[in-house]
């Protein structure tokens, strides 16, 4: 039989990771373009977090990366 528990974990992780990546990048775009000074560092932080997620993805692909 199909392993539904594994599938639902994959679904959940995919939704969180995929939407999380887009949310971080979108927030970064929005805040970096803002005029108020305090928003720009937050936008840059969002991009850094997004980059960290990408690096984590590379780590998953490359064996022995960590």
């Amino acid at each position, binding site marked *: *039989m*199909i*392993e539904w528990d*594994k*599938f639902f*974990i*994959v*679904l959940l*992780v*995919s*939704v969180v*990771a*995929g*939407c999380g*990546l*887009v*949310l971080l*990048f*979108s*927030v970064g*775009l*929005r805040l970096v*373009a803002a005029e108020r000074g305090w928003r720009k560092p937050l936008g840059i932080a969002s991009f850094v977090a*997004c980059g960290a997620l*990408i690096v984590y*993805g*590379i780590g*998953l*692909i*490359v*064996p022995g990366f960590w």
Partner: protein
Amino acid sequence: MVALVIVLALFFDFTNGFHDTANAMATPIATGALRPKVAVAIAAVLNLVGAFLSTEVARTISGGLIHEGSGGIQITPVMIFAGLIGAILWNLVTWLLGLPSSSSHALFGGLIGAAIVGAGFGSINLGVLLTKIVFPALLAPLTAGLVAFLATKIAYAVVKKKQRTHFKVGQIFTSSLVSLAHGTNDAQKTMGVITLTLIAAGMQQAGSGPELWVIIVCAMAIALGTYTGGWRIIRTLGKGLTEIEPGQGFAAEAATTATILASSHLGFALSTTQVASGSVIGTGIGRKGASVRWRTAGRIALGWVITIPASAVVGALASWVALSGIVGILVDAIVAVGVIVWIFLYSRRNHVNTATLHVEPTTFVRPKKTKKPKKTKRPKKAKQPKKHKKPKQNKNKKTTKGGAK
């Protein structure tokens, strides 16, 4: 025989490369984030690198799907040869039709057909076929489509119209990640097939990994295939399913990346092609005003449904002919080469390449037209070119329409 199987396996690897270029690069090309040639070059390099990253043999091909070893049916090089013919021919047919079908499913189908003819229905593990291939094939596009739908909603809710073009930068990273993952996974399958053949022929010890030369040639074959670029499938995924904007492209690639990495690392493998196609459809539904061409989506789904049976039929036929002896193997090889050449020549009638792809970078937003402009409001007249200035006239002088007398 072994040399023939290796050549065929490498050609399958090549077709796998150009068939699956679209999975990673269709949306960046469609949005103008990357120029077509640059996109396929990046994908080729990352596929080449990816192929060297992991040296584990892809056991899925032989491990479980077809009973093998002392307790089951021994896979022979002739069966692998016939299975590869089925996979290659089906890959080329779907490429000709511009359908993004799974190369792995074509390979599984070809091997299943060849094994049934060579060793009977008992050689196939139907339970594994259903749980590892058929059900995941149904769930892959649904999962990726849901993720892409939600991600598109988020992207369009958070970012203003004028900033959305910057999503192109993000697309380069996510599509590169998909290419790297593809190189790691798919090149392994061909390495597995060649290693299996060498073991079956007694040229390599059972249980050992792929030789270095096998890794190198497989990496080069998939990279070369990727660089060749399956422009027909890129056109279908990039422009045929829906009009893709940078925000959608980024959401789709993020969904594809997340789903592939999650599935391959949590023990529920999903097809890259089906995930990528599902993401594009999901992002088409997710943007207000966008529309999905369901007829094209239906054709793609039909292609997925018949991939395994069709390649199995070809594999079975090839196996039936090949099992008659050396003449049968030669007949198989000649017929396969003839069909491949015919497909390439036929494809020249409607040649698709970077020049004929007609990919124009999409604009930010194309809102849905809901109301027609009111009749009372006349559209503004276009600016008339400036007329030559009339010579200044004395106010006291009388003038006519024709000008000063």
